[in-house]
């Protein structure tokens, strides 16, 4: 514990605290001073606030690493340049393609993409539903003078109306059921891969790869349990179901900043990397002195020289050039040539 305080990152601590406080303020504002807040969800709220604190803390620590910091800065620099419209549009397209639809997983395997897409979509919709409810931002009221017309209120303002028993009502009130189904199917597909693929079996870990899937399935099953209970068991097991569900969800929330789920937030950096690549190519390519072919953007090569130096690696050569000026093929060839010379100078190739 002492060590934890010693290694505490002040900058991150400040940012995380601000983020957590901001959430609390938004809860107060959105729920009209807790007027619309559902007290039964207090445990979830606390879990979420902790998660926000943790995510912000880790994100901040992460951004302090030289390569990440550079990408962060460059991304904003390029995005907010005179080319803002094209980069903003590009980012939006990529957000849909790669964040919401995770298209880049498809070439890694079709079933793998289907599994991940189901799992991710279930989670994202569930977040979209539960967070506003937990924060008291969304609540439902009966239309005055009616027994069947419901109003959906957002931040205390009426945002929509629907009839009880209508398809919309059915879909809305069961949204989490659909999410649970998606997540469960997705998680089972991903588990199957982890049981059969030799490469995954060799490299996976329990806490890194299996725990997240187990947790997601536990949340989904217990969530479905609540639904099952009030639909078919008239609430007889409500207490048990709601407690187990709360426990799994809160475990999940608390685990986000530490485990595999943090990649949901890291993934956004992929958009930055894309802009960085496109802008870099526009600014000009670096040509490998060995292959005489362009291989990466000049900006990228120069940035990497600086980053690696910051990290304690100095690839400067005696002739004023830099090993990083070579393309990967050029680097490999340079090593092979050096090895050839060493062998040749020794008088024999073998022995």
């Amino acid at each position: 514990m002492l060590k934890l305080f010693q290694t505490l990152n002040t900058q991150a601590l400040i940012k995380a605290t601000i983020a957590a406080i901001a959430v609390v303020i938004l809860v107060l504002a959105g729920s009209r001073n807790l007027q619309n807040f559902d007290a039964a969800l207090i445990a979830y709220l606390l879990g979420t606030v902790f998660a926000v604190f943790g995510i912000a803390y880790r994100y901040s620590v992460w951004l302090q690493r030289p390569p990440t910091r550079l990408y962060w800065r460059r991304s904003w620099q390029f995005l907010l340049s005179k080319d803002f419209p094209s980069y903003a549009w590009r980012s939006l397209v990529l957000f849909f393609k790669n964040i919401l639809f995770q298209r880049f997983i498809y070439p890694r395997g079709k079933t793998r993409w289907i599994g991940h897409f189901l799992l991710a979509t279930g989670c994202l919709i569930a977040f979209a539903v539960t967070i506003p409810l937990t924060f008291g931002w969304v609540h439902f009221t009966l239309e005055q003078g009616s027994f069947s017309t419901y109003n959906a209120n957002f931040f205390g303002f009426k945002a929509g109306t629907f009839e009880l028993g209508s398809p919309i009502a059915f879909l809305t009130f069961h949204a989490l059921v659909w999410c649970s189904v998606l997540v469960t199917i997705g998680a089972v597909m991903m588990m199957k891969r982890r049981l059969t693929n030799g490469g995954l079996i060799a490299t996976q870990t329990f806490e890194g790869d299996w725990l997240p899937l187990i947790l997601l399935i536990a949340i989904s099953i217990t969530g479905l349990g609540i639904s099952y209970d009030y639909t078919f068991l008239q609430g007889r097991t409500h207490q048990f179901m709601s407690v187990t569900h709360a426990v799994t969800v809160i475990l999940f929330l608390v685990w986000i900043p530490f485990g595999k789920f943090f990649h949901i937030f890291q993934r956004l950096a992929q958009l930055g990397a894309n802009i960085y690549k496109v802008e870099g190519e526009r600014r000009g390519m670096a040509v490998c002195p060995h292959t005489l072919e362009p291989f990466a953007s000049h900006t990228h090569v120069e940035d990497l020289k600086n980053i690696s130096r910051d990290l304690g690696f100095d690839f400067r050569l005696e002739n004023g050039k830099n090993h990083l000026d070579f393309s990967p093929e050029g680097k490999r060839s340079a090593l092979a040539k050096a090895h050839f010379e060493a062998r040749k100078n020794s008088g024999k190739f073998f022995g």
Partner: protein
Amino acid sequence: MPNTKYNQQMEFFIDMQRCIGCHACEMACAECETNGQESMIHIHYVDRAVSVQTTVQVCMHCEDPVCANVCPADAITKDDFGVVHTANTSRCIGCSNCVLACPFGVPIKSEPQELMMKCNMCYDRTSAGKKPMCATVCPSQALYYGTREEISKMRPDSVPVNTFQFGEQEVKTKVNIMMPKGSTHLKVH
């Protein structure tokens, strides 16, 4: 990593002057289950116009891997055995920092997958006590996987070296390169 029968006595030794450029390693690399039909090993001519010299390059598994250091996504890790693993697929953002910074030119960016991939010394095989695919099939044994005793007996006039000099920078690796007896390092530039 789980269940492992990884034998720490076994080491990887490369001697690219023995390489005959046949690409058996490349074909066999695709059989390694950790990278499913994608080859991670590099084999190519150095300069075909003047020579048939080829080079063959696996991941050298650096003691302080530059790739992991420059990764903005913390996607590359080194395990307790010193094996530097390929990018964690959930983290890698496909930025290519590792591809460009690796002094040995090892990582590969798979563009459609937006993912870096690299040799992880056939972890599915080495962690089960087998030899990596490339070193198993290599017909010239330019790639050799075995103990130090074995290699010193077989190749009495060579010595394994794991220190490389790239200009100002010295890099130490887990994988060895076979050099003339008496060598302590390979100066690349």
